[in-house]
Structures are given as structure tokens and as C-alpha cells.
């Protein structure tokens, strides 16, 4: 039946899709059986149709399903051939079988089916007629064929592939020009050639200091300081400007400015919007990663590889300063997703979130609108819905992972040393315990006597009435008394017997009570069959038995683990997360065994990140704090049929979303965790000797302990029943090694999960999946090659992005860089190289640029140096009147455009002028100032008005609370990728600069600074202009400023008057515009 269904599905899919799918999965595609229409209807059936059925169709259906009106869902109901062909969802009528007919499910408005007609319900009688008609074999006399137009969905892949941006990057010769002397490099020649065509001349060269300010703002986001200006002026030699550009490129502020551009493209944000605006921990480390990457000029191909698959590279790129892993931070960009707690449909939620990721990937690296192919093939471009779901499958095969970048400084040699030290500590611990065996028989006898006496009953009674903390206090008193009376060992053993009841030490209690071993009994608990895959250095197999060792605790052995996997056994700082394979939930509870401290166990359904947050999903996240094995149990009735996997996070409290503005805590040195599919029968560990002390002696002497024996021994130590003397040097040695390990430094990244191929969602509905498989492949418009890799295929995807024959990547990246320098891209629509985008103004230049970029090993800085030292860049911003008229958008770049600084640069310039700006890079962001935003439950506490003097890039990007001052100047909403911000010019900006408290506060600080710096009024005015505009004040400006100070009553209140003048300076256009 399944095969037949898929054949039917194939038959009714669009022909070319079928062919392509078959090609990709030859194994699955059987012979294409063409089913003839099942039952030949008797002619008298036609009468029934005409009298009863046709009126229903006419009244309720044909408005949307006829060639004359609309063809919704690809379905025609105005002719027999129409319903025979079916619609996008496949067959709608199975003649003779109303219950197998999609049409009937829909008109009956059954759950899980789309209701039809959508707006009104058919009467019961009408539904019955349709059912009867289908039961009769659906006789239908309307024998018109389907028109070609109705059959053609207009998608011709080959034709679409002819689009300019998909053609190979051409090797172009530099054009000839009339005045080659003007050009300083080849790019200039291309620009000049176009101007020559029009008969226009490039604008005059702008004054050097103006160009310098331009370069500074573009490269670092900062206007030159008076000191920068002095340095620039001091160099009077040939090439002074080029050297200034080099200084700017070498400035660490370069990375800040260019990181921010990329943050726009990948919709960087630190919170998840929706109701609670949860914080995603550690996202700021991605921002720092970008700053370092741009400062180090990481080649864009390497950068791209890291973005897609930094976790999968054979060799990771390391931070030269710390030795930490840089590459693994790259995939973090996928995860700037939004999120809500407790969605009722996790599949729908996944589809929404993945759509955002696909949109971002398409925009950032391909310059394509792949997300437009979610519901159908792209309306204009060579992008199929198979492409969309191919990427979907890739994402679905990837799992959110909190990676430890400090792990890169860990290595096999250190691991070996630590393991050796652990073995020595274990040996010393066991030896220390063995030395106590001599007095154990006496202790055991005494404890048994006490246990048989009234002492036991009294102690239990006394304590059972109390609650913590009284209970703890009382216990301490009892312990002290007992210790005085009986000695410490007897006290410990007796109180253990009286008060505690650990699973692995049942045999001990039995022995103390009955004087003999416990019956062997049955295997314990159910067995599960998860295949566990660990990520991170922390996890290792416990199949040969492991002790959780912590020489910084008195008992040294914290627990014993005899099976499964364990993390934190040698050091809590060796981090990891362990996950199961994917499985499908059948509605029954999901269970497994786990124990540990500070760990978290999550059932991840449909990649839902916020498990634990919402009302229904709170059951999916369990904190683990138990040294006893517990059976974690997740009810799953709400998610029957969904795919899921188990995930156990060592140091789990640190690997989670956070409420409000909370910061994650620090890694604990006490954390550990063990997971297992089964439990040992601990009772077995008590078999063999006739005396308890001999049994324990046996356990302490053997090197071939069984899993059960391991756990029992672990229990004896962890409860303090066996004492450890840490005199042996092995303990200090291990402590030192543990101390030398870097605590984990977390970033949000990905790991590969099971290989997954996502079917196509018909018309974008997650409830209507294609039955034909959709093997993962690279974009059809760029060859559509099958990506046969196991796991997620992200690395293979990255290689396709970077393949020499892929014409988009270098073009898109080089064009973005160009756009940042010249104000508009050669392709104006920097995010869209498809048909809805713009055509390149200089196609040859674009290819020359792209080729040069790749030949220069994808170096951003080299390209920028060329662009900024070109003659074009040094042009004045005053246009030629003819070109201004004929080319108002300045597409041909006759002159440099005037630009307004970005929101961040405006704020930074205000802080720099007032002397508030701190020269401090990196780190967790500053909370935004939100006192001017409405109060709500999710609102974070406000940050300081001046953002602690940090550059704007260090202000946290909280989606529900974007800084209003920045937003007024077009700071992006940070939910969707933005390659080029729209620059608006609105009165709200004037109001912000006139009335925002930040501006007033900083005006005052600036005034105080000026008053301290210089003595004469004229010098102060000159300094003010140098700080604001990076140029000398003109005579009229000095006069104006004197006049202003007079008007502000400078003689009455000097600071107030200068504050007002500074306020005016911030409101002058030249403060925030670059000419």
C-alpha cells in the first residue's frame, strides 16, 4: 500500500519534479505505473451528476477551482480530467471509495484535514450527495481536457538558470579610457569607462582631510579624533593617505565596525522576542568572534566554511591569544532564532524557525531569496521547493550544541596524564581503605548490636518528627554523642544504617540486619536501546567502570558508575553533552537512566530549544541532581508522531536559555553526570564471601570489578563508610592537574545529528508532506548535485558555496563590501541577486571585482585597501549638475555620495566627543537603556544612559527592547537579515538629537572636557570643531560660536553655556553626515 501511495503521489506531481526526484533516489523510484481511472461509470450516473452534484460544485467549489476563475491548490473541479489529475495535495477523489477520498475528509471538515469550502460548511445533505456520487464511481460527463495554461506551473529550471547572476564569473579585460591618468587602479578604469560613455567627468578630488574622515568612518565607524588628525597632518610624504588607510585597517576598531555589518546580515540578537524575550546565553561571544575574525582578516572562504560547519572542520582555527577554538563559533549565526514557550504544535514552530534560518543562509551567502520557495518553486528565480526542503533537511540533521571553546587547549597528552593521575588516585584511595579493614569486623559487630537495640528505633523516631534544618541540627548532635560513645566509624556506619537507603547499598543494610548476604534477585529496571553520541572531551564510556573522582572532597570517590557513559569523572571542567539518535514518539513515555550533579536532561522534540519554559513543554526538561540512578520519564502524548532525541548536558544549568537579563552562572567543579540504558543488579556485588568485611576487602583488592561492584564500592566511599587518607602524593598531583584545566567557555554552536532528508511541504503546510522523498542536494539553479555526506551535510554545502564554479558567493560578498564603501552596491539590491533584485550597474566591474577578491585569497582588508585608495573614493561629494539630473541615484558613481553615519557611529561619536567613549573591546554586552520604554513583565532592568561609555556594538541587542536612540537612526529590527539598512531622514531624529537625555548628558560632559582642555575661548571653539568634524573651524564658525556663547550667557554660567554650544554641535549636520 505504501508503495502504491507513493506511486500515485509521483504520478500526480509535476512531471519534472518527478523526474528529478527519481534521478536523485534511483533506489526508491519504482516503475511509474499509470493508473487508468479506476471504475468506468455507467451512463445513468451522469444524470445523478447533473441533477445533484453539479449544483453543489457550482455553488461551493468552482469559484476557486476552475480554469475560468482561479486554480487554487492546483486543483480543477470544472472537468473530470481536473479531479482525476488531482491537486498539489495529490489525489482528491478515489472513485468508488468515498472514505479514501481526500475531498470527503475535507468537506466533512475532519481534524488534520484542511476544511473545504474554507469559509462555509456544506450541509449534511450536500456532503451525503458527494459521498454517494463518489461511491457510485464518480460518474462525470464533463470531458474537456485540461488547458495547457492550467497544467503549466510556469517553472522552467533551464530557462531560469540563464539569469545573469548564475552565469560564470567572466574574466574581463580592463577597459580603455580617455584619461587613464585619473585612475589609480583598475577599478577606477571601469568606473571611468562608463562615465566616458556618457561624456561625464568624475568629480574633483575632495580635500585630503575630508577623505580621511570618510575612510575613518567607513573602516572603523569612528570620526577621526584631533590626535588622529594631527598624525595624519604630520605625514607630508608621498603615500601619506595610503599609510593612513593602513593604520585604520590595522586599528582594532576596524573589526568592531565590520563585525557590526555582518551582524545585520545574520540578524544578530541576544534574545528570542515573543512573550518572555528569553536571553540566549553567550551570543556575545559570536560578536567577539566576528570582531577578531575581521581584525585578523580571516579569508572569507575560511569564514564561510566556519559559518556552515566550523564544528566539523578537520583542523580548527585557534585564537592565537588564548588557544581557544574559533571555528566552532561560526555556526552560531544559524541560532539567532526567535522562540516562544509552549507552542501547541512543535512541528509548525520548527517550520517557522527553520524558515528564518533558511532566509538568513540564502541572503548571507547566496544573495538569493531561497525562503521564497517554501510553499512552491520560486516565482522568479531558479530555486525549487526541493532546494528549500533540502536545506531544511540539513538543518534538521543539525542540533544546537553549547560547545566549549577552551577545549582546544586540551590534548591527548594532557588527557593521558589526567587519566594516569586518576588511576593513581584510585589506587591510593583503595589502598587507604584497605588499611582500615582490620577494625571493620569489630565495627560491624557493634553496629549490628546497636541496630538490634532500642537505639535504632529511638533515633529514627526522633529524626522522623523533624524537618530541615532542625533535622540536620539534631542529626549532628546525635552523631557527636555517638562518636563520643562509640567512635567515629561506628557512628557513621550506624547512622547510615538508621537513616539512609541507597539503591546500590541495599546489600549492606541486609547484611547489617541479617548477618548474611542479600539474595541475588533479578536484574533491575527496564533496559533501553538508545545509541548515545557524545560531543566534547568530557564524556567517556563507563563500560569498564568509572569512579567520579574529586580529590577536593573528603570522600574522593563521589560515585561509582558501572555502565553507560560518564562525564566529570576526572574533572568537571572537561565538558560535554551526550545525545541519542533520533526516534519517533509513539505517545508512550520516553525513559532512560541518569544520575549526576548540575546536569540537565532534555527530550528535544522537533529541535525545540525552549524546553522547560512553557506550560506544556516544562515536562521535557529535567534537572539532574542525584547520586542515585533515576529513571527520567517524559510524557509524550501531546507530541505523538514527532521526531525527538534525548540530550543530557553536563554542567546543564549553564547551557540553557535565561529569563530576562540574567547572566549564566560559572561552571561548577562539582558537576558530573552518567547516563545508561540499563542498571546492574547491585545485589550480585554482595555475593561470594561469608563475612561482610571480607566481601568489602575483596572489592578493594580486585582490578576486575563488575559494573555492580563498581557502583557498590563507589557508594561505600561516597557515603563515608570507607575513609580516605589523602597523604599519598597522588592526590596533590591530581589536584594540580585539575586546577590547570581551563574552565569551560561556552558558545552556541551546532553538532551533527542523524542524516535526515525532509519531504516537501505541499503549499508550505507542515501537515501536508510529499510522500516522495527529497534527497538533500545543493541548489538546483547551481547544479543541484546530491550531497551524499552523512550527518548534516553542512560541510559539503559550504564547499558547494565556495566551489570555483559557483558564481554567486564572491560576487555577493565583494558587492557587499563595495556597497559599504560607495554607499550603494554595483548590484543595488545587495541581498537579492535574483530577478526581483536590481541588475548590476557595472557588470564587468562586478566580475573583475569578484575575481580579484578570490585571487587575493578572499581578503576583506586587501579589497578595502584597493577601494579606499582608488581615485573614485577620493572624489568630492559635489555632483556634476548634468549627472545629478540624469543619474539621480548616482549609479555610475560620478561623485562620492554624502552619507549619514550609522546609528551606532552617531552614538559613538557623541560619546567620543564628550570623552566618555571607552577604548575597551569585547565582553558581555551592556544592558540597553530602557527607561523610555513601556514597562512589562519581560522588561529587563535598564542599563545606564551612557551604556557605560562602551561602543554601541557592545549594547545588548534585545529584540523586544531595542535601544530607542539607535532605532530612531535605522538600527535594524534584528529579526530578519538586513544587508543594507534603509536610511531614513525623519523629524523623529531631530527630536532625538534635541531632546534625548543622553544627548543632554553628553553635551554637558563635552563642555566640561572642553573647559578643562583649553584656556582661551577661541582655542576651545577650535578644539570643539576638530572633535566634532575632524577639521579646523572656519572664521565664520568661530564668530558664530562666540555669538552663541554670548546668547547662552556664558558670563553667568560657563558650563551651562558651553553645554548648550556642545548640544548645538551635535545637532549640526556635519556631526553625523560625512561629506
Amino acid at each position, binding site marked *: 500500500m505504501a508503495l502504491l501511495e507513493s506511486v500515485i503521489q509521483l504520478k500526480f506531481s509535476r512531471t519534472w519534479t518527478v523526474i528529478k526526484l527519481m534521478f536523485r533516489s534511483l533506489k526508491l523510484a519504482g516503475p511509474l505505473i499509470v493508473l487508468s481511472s479506476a471504475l468506468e461509470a455507467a451512463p445513468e450516473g451522469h444524470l445523478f451528476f447533473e441533477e445533484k452534484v453539479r449544483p453543489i460544485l457550482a455553488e461551493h467549489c468552482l469559484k476557486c477551482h476552475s480554469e475560468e476563475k482561479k486554480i487554487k491548490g492546483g486543483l480543477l473541479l470544472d472537468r473530470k480530467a481536473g479531479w482525476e489529475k488531482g491537486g498539489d495535495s495529490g489525489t482528491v477523489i478515489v472513485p468508488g471509495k468515498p472514505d479514501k477520498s481526500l475531498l470527503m475528509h475535507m468537506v466533512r471538515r475532519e481534524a488534520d484535514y484542511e476544511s473545504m469550502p474554507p469559509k462555509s460548511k456544506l450541509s449534511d445533505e450536500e456532503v451525503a450527495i458527494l459521498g454517494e456520487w463518489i461511491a457510485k464511481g464518480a460518474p462525470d460527463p464533463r470531458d474537456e481536457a485540461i488547458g495547457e495554461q492550467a497544467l503549466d506551473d510556469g517553472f522552467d529550471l533551464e530557462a531560469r538558470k540563464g539569469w545573469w547572476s548564475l552565469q560564470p564569473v567572466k574574466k574581463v579585460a580592463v577597459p580603455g579610457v580617455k584619461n587613464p591618468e585619473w585612475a589609480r587602479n583598475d577599478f577606477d578604469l571601469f568606473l571611468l569607462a562608463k562615465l566616458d560613455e556618457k561624456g561625464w567627468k568624475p568629480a574633483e578630488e575632495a580635500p585630503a582631510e575630508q577623505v580621511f574622515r570618510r575612510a575613518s568612518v567607513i573602516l572603523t565607524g569612528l570620526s577621526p579624533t584631533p590626535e588622529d588628525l594631527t598624525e595624519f597632518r604630520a605625514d607630508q610624504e608621498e603615500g601619506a593617505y595610503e599609510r593612513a588607510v593602513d593604520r585604520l585597517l590595522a586599528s582594532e576598531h576596524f573589526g568592531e565596525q565590520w563585525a557590526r555589518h555582518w551582524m545585520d546580515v545574520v540578524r544578530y540578537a541576544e534574545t528570542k522576542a515573543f512573550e518572555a524575550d528569553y536571553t540566549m546565553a553567550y551570543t556575545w561571544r559570536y560578536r567577539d568572534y566576528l570582531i577578531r575574525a575581521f581584525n585578523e582578516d580571516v579569508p572569507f572562504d575560511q569564514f564561510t566554511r566556519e559559518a556552515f560547519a566550523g564544528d566539523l572542520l578537520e583542523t580548527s582555527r585557534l585564537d592565537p591569544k588564548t588557544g581557544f577554538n574559533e571555528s566552532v563559533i561560526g555556526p552560531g549565526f544559524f541560532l539567532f532564532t526567535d522562540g516562544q514557550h509552549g507552542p501547541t504544535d512543535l512541528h509548525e514552530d520548527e517550520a517557522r524557525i527553520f524558515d528564518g534560518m533558511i532566509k538568513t543562509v540564502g541572503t548571507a551567502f547566496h544573495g538569493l531569496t531561497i525562503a521564497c520557495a517554501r510553499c512552491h518553486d520560486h516565482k522568479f528565480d531558479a530555486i525549487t521547493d526541493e532546494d528549500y526542503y533540502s536545506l531544511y533537511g540539513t538543518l534538521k540533521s543539525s542540533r544546537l550544541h553549547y560547545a566549549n571553546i577552551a577545549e582546544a587547549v586540551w590534548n591527548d597528552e594532557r588527557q593521558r596524564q589526567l587519566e594516569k593521575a586518576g588511576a593513581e588516585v584510585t589506587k591510593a584511595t583503595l589502598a587507604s581503605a584497605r588499611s582500615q579493614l582490620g577494625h571493620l569486623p569489630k565495627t560491624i559487630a557493634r553496629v549490628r548490636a546497636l541496630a538490634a537495640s532500642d537505639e535504632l528505633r529511638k533515633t529514627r523516631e526522633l529524626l522522623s518528627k523533624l524537618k530541615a534544618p532542625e533535622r540536620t541540627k539534631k542529626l549532628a548532635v546525635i552523631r557527636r554523642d555517638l562518636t563520643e560513645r562509640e567512635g567515629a566509624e561506628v557512628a557513621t556506619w550506624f547512622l547510615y544504617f538508621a537513616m539512609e537507603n541507597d539503591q546500590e547499598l541495599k546489600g549492606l543494610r541486609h547484611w547489617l540486619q541479617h548477618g548474611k548476604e542479600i539474595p541475588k534477585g533479578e536484574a533491575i529496571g527496564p533496559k533501553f536501546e538508545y545509541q548515545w553520541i557524545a560531543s566534547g572531551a568530557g564524556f567517556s564510556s563507563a563500560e569498564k567502570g568509572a569512579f567520579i573522582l574529586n580529590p577536593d572532597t573528603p570522600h574522593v570517590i563521589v560515585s561509582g558508575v558501572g555502565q553507560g557513559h560518564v562525564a566529570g569523572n576526572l574533572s568537571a571542567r572537561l565538558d560535554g553533552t551526550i545525545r541519542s539518535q533520533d526516534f519517533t514518539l509513539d505517545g508512550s513515555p520516553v525513559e532512560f537512566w541518569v544520575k549526576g550533579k548540575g546536569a540537565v536532561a532534555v527530550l528535544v522534540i522537533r529541535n525545540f530549544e525552549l524546553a522547560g519554559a512553557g506550560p*506544556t513543554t516544562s515536562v521535557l526538561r529535567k534537572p539532574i541532581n542525584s547520586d542515585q540512578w533515576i529513571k527520567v520519564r517524559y510524557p509524550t502524548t501531546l507530541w505523538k508522531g514527532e521526531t525527538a532525541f534525548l540530550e543530557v548536558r553536563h554542567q546543564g544549568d549553564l547551557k540553557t536559555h535565561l529569563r530576562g537579563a540574567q547572566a549564566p552562572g560559572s561552571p561548577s567543579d562539582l558537576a558530573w553526570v552518567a547516563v545508561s540504558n540499563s542498571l546492574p543488579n547491585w545485589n550480585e556485588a554482595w555475593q561470594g564471601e561469608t563475612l561482610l568485611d571480607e566481601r568489602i576487602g575483596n572489592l578493594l583488592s580486585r582490578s576486575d570489578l563488575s559494573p555492580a561492584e563498581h557502583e557498590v564500592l563507589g557508594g561505600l566511599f561516597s557515603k563515608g563508610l570507607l575513609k580516605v587518607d589523602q597523604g599519598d602524593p597522588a592526590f596533590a598531583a591530581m589536584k594540580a592537574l585539575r586546577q590547570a584545566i581551563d574552565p569551560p567557555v561556552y558558545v552556541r554552536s551546532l553538532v551533527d545529528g542523524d542524516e535526515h532528508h525532509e519531504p516537501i511541504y505541499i503549499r508550505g503546510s507542515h501537515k501536508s508532506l510529499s510522500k516522495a522523498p527529497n534527497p538533500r542536494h545543493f541548489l538546483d539553479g547551481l547544479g543541484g548535485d546530491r550531497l551524499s555526506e552523512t550527518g548534516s551535510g553542512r560541510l559539503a554545502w559550504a564547499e558547494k558555496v565556495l566551489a570555483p564554479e559557483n558564481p554567486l558567493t564572491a560576487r555577493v560578498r565583494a558587492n557587499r563590501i563595495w556597497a559599504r564603501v560607495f554607499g550603494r552596491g554595483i548590484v543595488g539590491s545587495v*541581498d537579492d541577486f535574483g530577478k526581483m533584485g536590481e541588475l548590476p550597474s557595472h557588470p564587468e566591474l562586478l566580475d573583475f571585482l569578484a575575481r580579484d577578491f578570490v585571487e587575493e585569497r578572499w581578503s576583506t582588508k586587501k579589497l578595502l585597501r584597493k577601494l579606499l585608495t582608488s581615485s573614485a573614493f577620493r572624489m568630492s561629494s559635489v555632483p556634476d549638475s548634468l549627472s545629478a539630473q540624469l543619474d539621480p541615484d548616482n549609479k555610475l558613481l560620478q561623485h562620492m555620495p554624502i552619507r549619514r553615519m550609522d546609528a551606532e557611529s552617531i552614538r559613538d561619536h557623541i560619546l567620543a566627543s564628550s570623552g566618555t567613549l571607552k577604548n575597551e573591546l569585547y565582553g558581555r554586552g551592556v544592558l540597553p537603556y530602557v527607561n523610555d520604554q513601556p514597562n512589562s513583565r519581560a522588561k529587563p532592568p535598564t542599563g545606564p544612559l551612557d551604556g557605560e561609555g562602551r561602543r554601541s556594538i557592545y549594547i545588548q541587542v534585545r529584540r523586544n527592547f531595542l535601544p530607542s536612540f539607535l532605532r530612531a537612526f535605522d538600527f535594524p529590527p534584528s529579526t530578519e537579515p538586513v544587508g543594507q539598512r534603509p536610511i531614513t*531622514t525623519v*523629524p523623529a531624529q*531631530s527630536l532625538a538629537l534635541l531632546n534625548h537625555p543622553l544627548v543632554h548628558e553628553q553635551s554637558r560632559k563635552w563642555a566640561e572636557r572642553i573647559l578643562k582642555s583649553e584656556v582661551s575661548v577661541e582655542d576651545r571653539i577650535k578644539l570643539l570643531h576638530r572633535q566634532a568634524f575632524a577639521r579646523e573651524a572656519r572664521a565664520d564658525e568661530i564668530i558664530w560660536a562666540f555669538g552663541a556663547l554670548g546668547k547662552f550667557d556664558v558670563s553667568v554660567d560657563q558650563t551651562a553655556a558651553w553645554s*548648550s554650544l556642545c548640544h548645538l554641535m551635535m*545637532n549640526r549636520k556635519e556631526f553625523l553626515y560625512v561629506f
Partner: protein
Amino acid sequence: MHRGSMGFGSLALAGLLDKEAQAAPQGRHFQPKAKSVIFLYMDGGVSHVDSFDPKPLLAKENGQKPKFEVEATVFNNNGNILKSPWEFKNYGESGIPVSDLFPYIGSCADDLAVIRSMTAFSANHPSANYSLHSGQILAGRPSMGAWASYGLGSENQDLPGYVVIHGGQVPSGGMPMTGSGFLPAAHQPSVLHPKGVVLRNISALEKKVGLQEDKLALLREIESKLTERRSDSDLINAAVKNYEMAYRMQMAVPEVTDVSKEPDHIKKMYGLEASYNNTRTYGAQCLMARRLVEKGVRFIELTINGGNGDRWDQHGGLRDGHQKNALAVDQPIGALIKDLKQRGLLDSTLIVFAGEFGRTPFAQGRDGRDHNPQGFSIWMAGGGIKGGTIYGATDEYGYHAIENKLTVHDLHANMLHLMGVDHTKQTFRYGGRDVRLTDVHGEIIPEIMA
């Protein structure tokens, strides 16, 4: 064709950059019925079976296990059928039934078109809120108000085209849901507050009288030299000019939002003297809305005030919570309709009353109701709406819309239509598509049009 200028959102110039060209108002496609829209956003989800969609069967089967299949809800703590604690009365000539929650609104029944077949795209507040505002269950998409501003701007140079009068309760999903998304930031709402500082950055901070005026004069003086020198640059000239507009707004906004000078009978009518604090707040919001309409503001959204027991979101304590919420909004809304009418403005002002979804006909816990996106009621009144109309229907329990089912796309399409905008033609190029507020959906409903 009259093209309104854009007030706050204004770009005094078009054609600087492509993006900016798109920021200029697109204009109307046909004669509008409504010049302004007031969107009364009932945050949290009003229970339709307790307000505008009476279901006698709920009383009959009260306390019984639902006889229909119950779909997953947010809390999934679903109980038995819960009858409405309120009685319904038929109002006006049309006889539209309205529950005792809303006697004032009920008294305007003949002006209302009650839509009983609304549906939502999500059962979660944020997603449903996002889609009610933008048509998409996504954060960060442009809201209907932003689209209205983008399409039509403002009639008044000195006032914003799109205003949110914030009652105090930030909707679940955050204030950015009322934002401009990928539309130019010019179309962000100006968020007005009925108490305290009316609008961010609207008040001069200079304490000394005349100081700001002095500053502006000095600024004008020095900038005029720049604009002379760079007369070629529209960008610079527009940026300079904006200071004049900013100053005018600084005057106009406090003036238009100051309800204290309204006559006493009007204040009383809106509930400004009511004993319940939230009635006074919402009354002031409604009165501000009327004053803004008079000045030609295009799109005004009212968020409700907090402190009514979690918005309209009564997962428990339905009777108390809904009663308090209704007490806060009913009188002011009734007054708004009547006041607009007596001023002859109702015909040109579209009022929309809607939450993000309705509530279940069965109980959550003992005395609450969970979210019900499958069918609920909203109403429209005023500009271009046929009063006294009931459109669409839910099933006999009020669980699913079964007749003339509508989505937010349809709501938006009709709102734009009444404003003179063809929702299929108002587009913005984004992400490779000419995006519409209504995506590829939305149908005009002739039955509710006057």
C-alpha cells in the same frame, strides 16, 4: 487624488535612494470610506461566548464532558463545558445580542458589524498577536498601522500618521509588534502615553524659558550656510528642514493629547470621572484617539491598561477578570462611538475591536477558559461599515468557525479597503518579493460594507 503628507513619518523628499523612494506614501487606489482607523486591541483574547456570540447549549451542557473532540491547547488542562456567567440582551433595532459585560457597547449595536467567524493562526499569545498585527506569526514584521502609514501617510503635517496610545499593558510579544519591521523606520508608531511624558523626546529638556528657541535659531543660522553651500544635496536640506517640523510637533503633540480642556460632560461620558482607575485611563485613551482623529491622524491603536488580572487572558477567574476588563473599556468605547457620531466623524472613522483569539467553550481548570483560535468574535463600526450586521458563525458550542470563516488577512484586507487601499496592490519589495500586508490572501466582505 489627494495624497496626504506623512507627518512624523515624513520624508520630505522622495527619490534620494530607492529605499527612500519607497518610503513616500503610495497613495490610494479608490475613494476611501474611512480616513482614520482606531484599532481597539483587546490584548489577551476576549471570550466570544461571553460577549458577542451567545451559545445556549453551553448552559444546557454546563459541567458535562465536551461531546466534541478537544484539540490541544496551550495549557492542555481542559475541563468540562462552562456556561457563560453573563446574560445576553438584544440591543437596538438590529437586535444584536451582547452580553452584560458590554452594556455601553451594546447600546451602539446598530452601528456594529459583529463578525463571529474570526480565526487566528496560533493559539499562543505572541504568535497570534504578531499575526493580528502583521498577518504573519513572526516577530519583527511590519504592522497594519505601519502599512497604513506607508500607504497613506498622515493628513496632518505636524502629527504622526501612526500612533499607539499605550494603556500600560505591553502585549505579549513586546511593543515591536506594532513596529514597522522591514518598512522604513519612518513608519514606526509614535507611542503616546495617557499619563506622564506623552511621547519620547517630544519635550524640550531645557529648563530655561526660550533656551531651546535660541538654540534652534542659532542652529538655523549656521546650518543655512551649509545648505547654501550644499544646495545640491536633498539629503542635507531635508535633514535641516526636519528641525522645523520637529519643533512644530513639539507644540502640536502635547496640545492634541491634552484632554484636560475637554468639557466636563465629555469627560464624564468617556469615564474620566469613573471610580475605577482603569476606566479613567482607557477613557483618556479613547478621548485622545478622538482628538487625534479630528486632526487627521491616520491609524491609532489602543493597547489596554494593565492590572485587570492578566489582560483578557482569564485562564482562571473568568468572571472577575473579564468583568474588570469590561469595566475598564466598555464605557469609554461606547462614548467614543457616540461622540464620533455626534461630531459627524463616525462615518469617516473605522473602529475595530479585536483580540488575538477567543476563548474555549469548555473550562480550563474550574473557572477559566483557554485560548481558542478556531473561532471567535470581533466587531467593526463606523467608516464604511454596515451597522447592525452579524456576519459568520461558529458551531453550536462556539468552538470552530463554520460559516464565512475569516482570517486576519481578511480583516486587514477589509481595513485597507475601507481606507481606499487595494490590499493586493499595496506592496513593498523585500526579500525578493513584493510583499503585501495580506500576503497572498484576503478577501473583501461586501456583506459588512455600508
